[in-house]
């Protein structure tokens, strides 16, 4: 028997209570995994999409709003000729309800620019020119909308023909409805407006160079903001709100877990008062009792964390299927997040054990004889 056995035995003593407490913590941890996984997924999915398009810098205008605000297309002319800029592509992105899908990414891309190059046709063809009333669907978008080549898609008041279905190499690309820029500008009434400029830099430029180039651009374009691809999402107001809401919800759930563990450990200390006194009479130091209680609650946290991560993964799979999220983002469930979640759970356990442990250190050894 080791000290760890003593700790495990302490938790096994009341299996139902231990189980319910574990459930309490694990719900909080599941919330962390699911919500944070989703909101981080937003950044990683969009960054992956950018990478597929070969975009290193994105100029957009997220300032003060949840979705990017359109700005005039001529902004591009001010930065296109900066040294270090290899190519640019103007884009208008919108999130719209299309037919039965509540929210789809609709991406209008400058005709002939590099943002079309990563689209590998799975079937059909590309639009013949930028005036053809045609769209290309990402593979997931085709699934969600249940469309095949030759079907029509209703966007706002316009009926467009699906001419191609393409694999864009990234989750967000595959979830998009893609069409030539002027067509989308016309449909949405955003004449000569764009919401992003994708920028390719000259090959071999390092991160510092990219950042420097962003700074240069930002001096020239008050109406937009240039940032390395991906960061433009992470620093956007929308992402910050989503992230803050995710953490807020998670922290509330975690707080409930903290109260649960504290309550459990406190009850456990109270009902074991005499037992603790006996341990003291047998020569255990108060510090060992404190350690026992802290380890018990840390172990509760750890186990709750593992269960929570599993619940969170299941939860995310369910959330991903929600109509509003389908095809928009791939949850970011890397081991990093799992480890963070388990670390949070252990921290919660130790934190919750502090007061009960302090109480346990104050049990009088004389209770062993005078129960």
């Amino acid at each position, binding site marked *: *028997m*080791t*000290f760890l*056995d*003593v700790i495990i*035995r*302490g938790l*096994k*003593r009341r299996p139902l209570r231990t189980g319910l407490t574990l459930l309490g913590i694990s719900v909080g941890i599941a919330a962390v995994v699911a919500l944070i996984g989703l909101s981080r997924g937003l950044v990683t999915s969009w960054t992956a999409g950018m990478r597929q398009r070969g975009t290193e810098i994105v100029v957009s205008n997220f300032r003060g709003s949840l979705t990017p605000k359109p700005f005039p297309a001529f902004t591009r002319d001010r930065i296109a000729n900066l040294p270090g800029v290899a190519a640019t592509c103007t884009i208008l992105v919108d999130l719209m309800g299309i037919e039965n899908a509540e929210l789809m990414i609709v991406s209008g891309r400058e005709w002939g620019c590099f943002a079309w190059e990563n689209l590998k046709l799975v079937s059909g063809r590309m639009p013949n020119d930028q005036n053809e009333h045609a769209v290309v669907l990402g593979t997931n978008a085709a699934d969600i909308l249940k469309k095949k080549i030759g079907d029509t898609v209703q966007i706002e008041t316009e009926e467009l023909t699906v001419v191609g279905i393409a694999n864009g190499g990234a989750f967000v690309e595959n979830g998009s409805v893609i069409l030539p820029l002027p067509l989308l500008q016309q449909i949405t009434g955003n004449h000569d407006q764009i919401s992003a400029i994708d920028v390719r830099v000259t090959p071999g430029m390092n991160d510092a160079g990219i950042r420097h180039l962003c700074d240069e651009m930002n001096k020239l374009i008050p109406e937009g903001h240039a940032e390395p691809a991906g960061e433009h999402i992470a620093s956007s107001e929308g992402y910050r709100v989503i992230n803050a809401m995710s953490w807020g919800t998670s922290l509330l759930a975690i707080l409930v877990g903290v109260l649960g563990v504290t309550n459990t450990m406190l009850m456990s200390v109270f009902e074991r008062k*005499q*037992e603790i006194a*006996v*341990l*003291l*009479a*047998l*020569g*255990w*130091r*108060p510090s*060992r009792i404190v350690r026992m209680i802290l380890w018990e609650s840390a172990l509760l946290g750890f186990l709750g964390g593992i269960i929570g991560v599993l619940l969170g993964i299941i939860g995310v799979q369910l959330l991903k299927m929600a109509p509003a999220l389908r095809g928009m983002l791939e949850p970011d469930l890397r081991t990093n997040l799992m480890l963070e979640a388990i670390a949070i759970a252990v921290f919660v356990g130790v934190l919750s054990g502090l007061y009960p442990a302090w109480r346990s250190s104050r049990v*009088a*050894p*004389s209770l*062993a*004889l*005078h*129960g």
Partner: protein
Amino acid sequence: MNLTSSPSKAGAASRYVFEATGLIKDFDDGQVHALRGVDLQIEDGEFVAIVGPSGSGKTTLLQMLGALDRPSEGTLKYRGESLLDLPDPAAYRAHEIGFVFQAFHLLPTFTASENVQIPMFEDHKSRAERQERALELLKAVGLEERVNHYPAKLSGGERQRVAIARSLANSPSVLLADEPTGNLDSESANHVLDLLRSLHADRRMTLILVTHDMSIAACAQRAIQMKDGCAVFDGDPAKLSIHRIA
């Protein structure tokens, strides 16, 4: 003697294991007087029975000797060293004293062997050493067949024998037992008493035993009679007159 580093079992600085003078213990801000000035010397290797009516202060006295509580006034020495300013009371309780309780106080979720190992966590023994020592002690109390039994599966007498094995875990020189047979039928009680007597005889342990049972007190070398927090008789158990008890 240094209680923290080298336990005193070897050399005695004093001929007395315990020496108490004017020992007073009050509870509830002086409203309850549990001990009202007890003077006492107990020699190494003695078997002392403490008797007296309920509430007379027997358990309280045992608590003072085991450093589970501090007296309100008076002096109390263990082998010449004051128990009132022990640098490490836990070490004293772990290595010098073995406790046996009326209600056994075994941990229900631990086997007999594991219960015996509990005090050894403070003794820097390896896992294997702890296990081996527990087995040895359980053999010594005649429970080698019950090593992996949980307390619920043991009779009262067996439980108390496990508790006695546990009290011996770190080889203390003193056993403090508070009515160790109080919860047992007479047959089990005799078995436990025989065990305690043989520990006293074979291991030269100092045995201080609180009891209501005159036949048990009669086995001791010496009886101390408590009444209202005072020691009213101290001497040969045979001379304890029946009317003084209970």
